[in-house]
């Protein structure tokens, strides 16, 4: 058992250290002999055991004695740990590549490849920006009426639904990636504004009215809002200025915003969005699969294209 363990460990070390390659070769010889049902006669295990125990001996005689006595048991434990560790490392790498998190789709927890958890951070519905902490398995589009939201319907089967908040950092991080995704691929695209902060609530009726007044200009308005600073878009005058520059009838939008029908529509939109079980923004659905937090571009693209991605 020790030979297999040593072979795995030394093979990895040998990638970086030439001086360990002959040991790895010796370990391989031992493993090969075992596989071919021959006894390992190289004395590799004894040699390594003596070196390990000897090195320990210079630090602690008790530890050396324990290792010497239970060498086989310790080898087994280390072997199982190594195999498990290799499995979990492989799984972690797979998950990171596929979902942007070592722990799986929308899963938080430490990931060495994303130590700060950037790919999973969300602006929580409570208002603060932290790691996603809701129940990521429950995010869904089932029974959500997307017709209530601004949509570019290209009549294709692929779809991207982007639920985010104009003033949230992680939505802002994901926005250009989603724009790239929808510009490079034929998809039906839906955007839903889900304000996390109170000062952004006023944009809900404005967005609703702007979309109804001119759908083409609405998408440019979206770009402008995401491109502007969070402080600026918190000011109504600033947004009105953008609307004006885009050629919108600002007074018509203002009066539309205050109409009871608009208020009811905005509430209806909110109710629909709650059905997604959203707990933070951004929440992106690519062909129905929910992704919480800003993921690397490859993750969106891979899910969108499926087998075509490879």
């Amino acid at each position, binding site marked *: 058992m020790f030979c297999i363990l040593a072979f795995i460990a030394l093979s990895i070390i040998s990638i970086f250290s030439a001086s360990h390659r002959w040991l790895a070769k010796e370990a391989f010889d031992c493993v090969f002999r075992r596989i071919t049902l021959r006894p390992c006669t190289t*004395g590799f295990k*004894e*040699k390594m*055991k*003596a*070196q*390990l*125990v*000897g*090195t320990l*001996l*210079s630090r602690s*005689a008790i530890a*050396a*004695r324990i290792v*010497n006595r239970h060498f086989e048991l310790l080898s087994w434990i280390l072997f199982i740990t190594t195999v498990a560790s290799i499995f979990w490392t492989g799984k972690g790498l797979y998950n990171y590549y596929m979902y942007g998190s070592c722990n799986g789709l929308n899963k938080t927890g430490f990931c060495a490849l994303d130590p700060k958890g950037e790919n999973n951070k969300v602006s929580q519905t409570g208002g603060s920006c932290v790691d996603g902490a809701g129940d990521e398995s429950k995010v869904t589009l089932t029974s959500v009426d997307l017709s209530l939201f601004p949509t570019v319907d290209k009549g294709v089967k692929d779809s991207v639904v982007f639920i985010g908040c104009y003033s949230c950092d992680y939505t802002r991080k994901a926005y250009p990636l989603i724009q790239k995704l929808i510009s490079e691929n034929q998809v039906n695209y839906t955007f839903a504004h889900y304000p996390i902060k109170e000062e952004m609530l006023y944009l809900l009726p404005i967005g609703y009215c702007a979309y109804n007044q001119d759908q083409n200009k609405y998408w440019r308005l979206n770009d402008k809002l995401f491109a502007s600073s969070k402080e600026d878009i918190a000011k109504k005058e600033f947004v009105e200025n953008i609307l004006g520059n885009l050629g919108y009838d600002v007074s018509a939008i203002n009066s539309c915003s205050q109409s009871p029908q608009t208020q009811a529509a905005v509430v209806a939109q909110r109710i629909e969005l709650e059905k997604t079980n959203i707990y933070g923004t951004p929440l992106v659905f690519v062909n129905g699969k929910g992704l919480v937090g800003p993921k690397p571009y490859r993750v969106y693209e891979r899910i969108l294209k499926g087998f075509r991605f490879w």
Partner: protein
Amino acid sequence: MDITKIRHDFPVLSENGIYFDNACQSLRPQSVINAVTEYYQEYSACAGRSNHHLAAKVTQKCDEARTRIAKFLHAKRKEEIVFTRNTTEGINLVANTLNLKEGDVVLTSDKEHNSNLIPWQILHRKSGIIHRIVRSRDDNTFDMDAYKQALESGVKLVSLGMTSNLDGVTIPAAEIIKLAHQDGAVVLLDAAQAIPHQVIDVRKLDVDFLAFSGHKMLGPSGTGVLYGKYELLEKLSPFLVGGDTVSSSTYDSCEFLPPPEKFEAGLQDYAGIIGLGEAVSYLERIGFAQIQKQEYALNSYITEELQKIPNLVILGPSDPKERSGIISFYISGKDHHQIALMLDASTKIMVRSGQHCVHSWFADRKIPGSVRASVYFYNTLEEAELFVKELHKVLSIL
């Protein structure tokens, strides 16, 4: 002898732990290293072939080394010194050129290094010589009675290790040679383990051939010497042949040079030869009386301490005086390799473990192997104390 001063001469000793593997290979003093380096840096040319000034210098330096070694061995003339790569080559040279025929008896002891065993086994298969073995006494010392008895059957060559690398026991060479000569036998001594530790006077011994290596006596590795009485060397047929072994050649014949040239085929290890000459000078400066005194002091201490360890068996006689600088031991139930490896891993104490190229002896006695600590004059009592202390620690966990 100022050991602290001497230790400064050996660069390896400064930071490489405790070197107790001197029976395998000794360390080299700076003067030997310098001699070798000087050759490569200042006059790395051929000897004996070219006529330019560098070649002349190499020729002169090699000749000086040969003269120095001849004097060191108390040889009659420098031409009795043949440079070889090591002891093994020297023994093989004699084995293959002495013209041993079917039925000729070669006598060795039962604890010869493979270098002095395998050549005779091969000759037995190839030429039908008879290889006889004189068994040692129970304490591994030379059994003179058994030897005398073996001589009675008619022996052509007696080939013995002068000092055993197994246990450090030195044979009574002078008496052995005298008896062999009385019976008309030629004597070849493997002096690899003897020459670093004692004065060897080949004329007093009246030995016919004597082979040793440079690497055990402070010299460069890959160097060795075969001493042979000149009249015997003349009679030997050439072994390795080629460049510099002949004075002239035609397409179908050649004229061999006299000894030692006829045995020194091809370009020699000039740096090594010059380094070996320097090693001899160094040993002479220290003096064998001082060397033996220090070895005995260390061996006595280690032996005394090791004898206190239960089940520990020291190979050879219990008296350290009879074991040169070697303390070879085993403990039943404890793996010799484990002990050696752990000493190295824990405290960088370097000893040898295994069967020390004397597999035949271990196989005969059904002993798996031994740990061999071999000290030299540059080792200290503090090192010996640490060795004993660490050995106790290792044994306590095994």
